């Protein structure tokens, strides 16, 4: 920066040139008028060359910097250079073939330099003026103007006088007075316009120097005298100042350009690096974005401001049932398939209300439900869509996008769920009793109508609440919840009776089957229950229980009575046995008496009578003996009795050669029948033994048979001698005790007796059915 500030002023080299030129001029002027033709030639030549160099430099700078001003200056200097060269050419003393040029001198006067002297400040001033006016370009018109001006000046000065005798201020060439004034004007203008162009600064010095030089020239008397040389030197200095300034500017521009280029190169490098990094990041980001977009379950469509779909992700393509290659670059109204779009309620949407149309109008929307139908195939899908436009920083619509979520399955699942729910509710509401589900804290999750009726409130009033909260009787609620907790803690379903009153206050008993509610992993998440009103059953049970108790009491009483009866019966049996025992004992006593009596008798008749008596006593005793041995103490089988009876009679009889056979049908007989029967058999058998077998040999048959009508036949027969008889009464031993007894017994038995005597005796007694 400091460089720039110093270079705003006069270059050091130019200052040195100016100082040197000033010193030489001072010396030349101090010497007084002299003649320096060689120097004049050298200086004129230098001036011409210098003007050419400056002209080229300025044109080049103008070309590079794109500055019309510099180009104009270049043109001016070039034109001046041409004039200067003409001046030099006509000044030189030519010889040989070039002497022709020397001959031109007569035509072209030696004073050919003034046109150049005037052309230059005018051209520079014009260029400054154009710059000040802001004119750019139009170089050609400027060049034409300069050439015309140069030609005009050249012609004009051909006519003007050259050297005159010194006038005021020693001016010998008044025609040239305009030149320093022009340069002064140019200097002032350059100074005022120095801000517009860097070279204007240098022009100030150049103009100042040339103004002085041309002023001195006014005093020159010959082409090569001292003042003329000073003027020439001043011109050379002024042009050098311009040249050096221009060169310095050029070199500075070059440096700055190099610096700028290196900075640019490093910036470029940096930029390349950043671009590389950002490109990588973008590629990575895009890869991620693409991966997300391609794998997301939601469909994504991106479209441009014309509604042309630029992108479908796979989900969107799947939902639309289109091939990915098929779309992409197709306009929405050129899609190969036609769509029909309806809203949630099935109302057909016009084309402009489709999601793309809405986004194109700048709308943002979310969770819009759509039913989309593909016209050609009839395939439909339900979707929830979101849409939004994307704007650039400048607020221009650049892209729009739509996301689609296929909710077909959701809707089906919801319908299925609803159907299952309806079914469940239908079942549960149809079931008499309560069905419910509760969560871990016994808050009601589900309840059927029965439950709502029990509680007496609308479902919404107790769902989510506990029994303790919605039941009027808090104690009942707590008891129910305690049962719930027990089921949930054990994980085992159970049946409990619960007491929960109806909403109208009627007490009720419920048989509740409660089971743990488990989730998919088997964790217990609550309890489900089924409760049936068993109040009526409980009442019936209570009545039954009461009846049962009564019956049991009665049964107990009956048992007690039965016990007493049994006791009485046992007692009676004991008594009966005792009686029989005593009867038998008494019989034994009677028999003992008879035995002893027998011993005191000598009369065989009497002895026989006693023996018969003993037989009868024995028969009585045997009846009691049989009774005592029977189970019921009242009846006994008649066959063993008859057998024992006859055996005993036979044993007591003297006739060992007589055999007896007893055959009897099974017949239970009582005391009233057995005693007469036994006595009858005793008498009849004894009779046979006494009378039928004089030889001591024979056989007796005792037969008791039962007739189908229930009557009996007792037959006692022997194969003995028999006896003569006219009538049965006699034959039974008329007058004998035995016969009397037999008749009495037959009569007692309400029987009839028939006695036959034919090859033995046969007594046949028919007895009616025993009462």
């Amino acid at each position: 920066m400091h460089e720039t500030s110093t270079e705003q002023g006069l270059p050091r080299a130019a200052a040195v040139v100016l100082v040197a030129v000033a010193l030489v001029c001072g010396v030349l002027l101090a010497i007084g008028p002299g003649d320096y033709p060689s120097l004049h030639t050298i200086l004129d030549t230098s001036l011409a060359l210098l003007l050419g160099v400056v002209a080229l430099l300025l044109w080049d700078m103008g070309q590079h910097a794109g500055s019309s001003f510099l180009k104009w200056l270049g043109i001016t200097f070039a034109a001046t250079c041409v004039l200067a060269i003409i001046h030099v050419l006509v000044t030189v003393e030519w010889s040989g073939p070039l002497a022709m040029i020397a001959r031109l001198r007569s035509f072209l006067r030696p004073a050919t330099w003034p046109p150049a002297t005037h052309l230059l400040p005018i051209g520079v001033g014009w260029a400054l003026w154009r710059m000040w006016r802001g004119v750019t370009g139009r170089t050609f018109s400027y060049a034409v103007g300069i050439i015309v001006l140069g030609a005009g000046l050249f012609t004009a000065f051909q006519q003007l006088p050259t050297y005159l005798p010194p006038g005021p201020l020693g001016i010998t060439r008044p025609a040239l007075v305009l030149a320093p004034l022009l340069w002064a004007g140019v200097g002032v203008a350059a100074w005022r316009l120095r801000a517009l162009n860097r070279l204007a600064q240098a022009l100030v010095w150049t103009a100042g120097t040339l103004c002085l030089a041309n002023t001195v020239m006014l005093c020159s008397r010959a082409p090569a005298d001292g003042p003329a040389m000073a003027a020439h030197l001043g011109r050379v200095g002024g042009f050098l100042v311009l040249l050096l300034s221009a060169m310095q500017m050029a070199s500075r521009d070059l440096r700055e350009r190099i610096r700028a280029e290196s900075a640019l190169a490093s910036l470029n490098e940096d930029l390349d690096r950043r671009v590389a990094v950002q490109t990588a990041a973008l590629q990575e980001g895009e890869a991620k974005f693409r991966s997300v977009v391609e794998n997301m379950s939601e469909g994504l469509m991106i479209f441009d401001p014309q509604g042309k779909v630029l992108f479908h992700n796979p989900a969107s393509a799947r939902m639309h049932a289109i091939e990915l290659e098929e779309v992409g670059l197709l306009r929405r109204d050129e899609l190969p398939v036609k769509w029909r779009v309806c809203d949630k309620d099935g109302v057909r949407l016009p084309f402009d209300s489709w999601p793309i149309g809405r986004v194109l109008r700048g709308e943002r929307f979310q969770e819009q439900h759509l039913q989309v139908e593909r016209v050609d195939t009839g395939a439909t899908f339900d979707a929830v869509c979101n849409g939004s436009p994307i704007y650039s920083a400048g607020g221009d619509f650049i892209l729009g996008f739509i996301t689609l979520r296929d909710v077909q399955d959701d809707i089906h699942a919801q319908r299925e769920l609803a159907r299952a729910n309806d079914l469940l509710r239908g079942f549960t509401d149809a079931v008499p009793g309560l069905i419910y589900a509760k969560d871990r804290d016994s808050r009601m999750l589900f309840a059927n109508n029965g439950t709502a009726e029990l509680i007496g409130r609308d479902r919404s009033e107790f769902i989510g609440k506990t029994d303790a909260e919605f039941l009027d009787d808090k104690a009942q609620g707590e008891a129910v919840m305690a049962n719930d907790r027990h089921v949930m803690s054990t994980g085992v379903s159970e049946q409990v009776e619960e007491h929960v009153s109806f909403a109208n206050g009627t007490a009720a008993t419920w048989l509740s089957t409660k089971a743990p509610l488990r989730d998919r992993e088997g964790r217990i998440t609550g309890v489900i229950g089924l409760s049936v009103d068993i109040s009526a059953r409980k009442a019936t049970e209570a009545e039954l229980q009461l009846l049962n108790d009564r019956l049991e009491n009665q049964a107990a009483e009956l048992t007690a009575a039965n016990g007493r009866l049994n006791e009485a019966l046992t007692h009676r049996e004991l008594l009966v046995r005792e009686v029989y025992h005593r009867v038998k004992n008494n019989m034994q006593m009677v028999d003992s008496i008879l035995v002893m009596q027998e011993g005191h008798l000598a009369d065989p008749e009497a002895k026989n009578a006693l023996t018969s008596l003993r037989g009868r006593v024995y028969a009585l005793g045997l009846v009691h003996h049989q009774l005592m041995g029977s189970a019921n103490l009242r009846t006994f089988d008649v066959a063993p009795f008859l057998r024992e009876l006859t055996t005993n009679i036979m044993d007591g009889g003297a006739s060992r050669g007589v055999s007896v056979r007893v055959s009897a049908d099974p017949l239970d007989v009582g005391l009233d029948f057995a005693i007469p029967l036994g006595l009858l058999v005793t008498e009849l058998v004894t009779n046979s033994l006494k009378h039928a077998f004089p030889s001591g040999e024979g056989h007796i048959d005792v037969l008791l048979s039962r007739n189908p009508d229930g009557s009996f036949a007792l037959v006692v027969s022997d194969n003995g001698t028999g006896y003569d008889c006219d009538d049965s009464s006699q034959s039974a031993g008329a007058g004998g005790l035995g016969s009397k007894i037999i008749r009495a017994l037959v009569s007692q038995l309400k029987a009839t007796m028939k006695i036959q005597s034919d090859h033995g005796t046969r007594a046949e007694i028919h007895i009616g059915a025993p009462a």
Partner: protein
Amino acid sequence: MSDLQRHVLVVDDDFLIVMGLTKQVEDMGLAVCASASTADKAIELARLHRPMVVLMDMRLDGAKDGVDAALVIHEEIGSKVIYITGSQDPNTVVRINTDHPFAILFKPVSSQQLRDAIGAAIGLCVV
């Protein structure tokens, strides 16, 4: 055995029955050595007379019954005991059978039954 006497001991609490039985035994030509109406007396007499046969009633005077007496007699003396009882009570029969009775006769007993039983008992003893 040989020291047993050819006597019969009659045990019954009813004196008439004792007399009747005695008459019938004597009619068989056997001697009745003694008669008793209690168990203790029966044992005492049996020890004294050592009879071959004892006619034993079940029901006796005193606390003990015929079986009590018969058990001791059978054990100590070895007499054949013929029970003569009016009872067919099953308990009584079971109790009698605990004493290896020679015979059980139920009242009223016919002369023949008694004769057969005693005869069998004596015959067994003698032989």
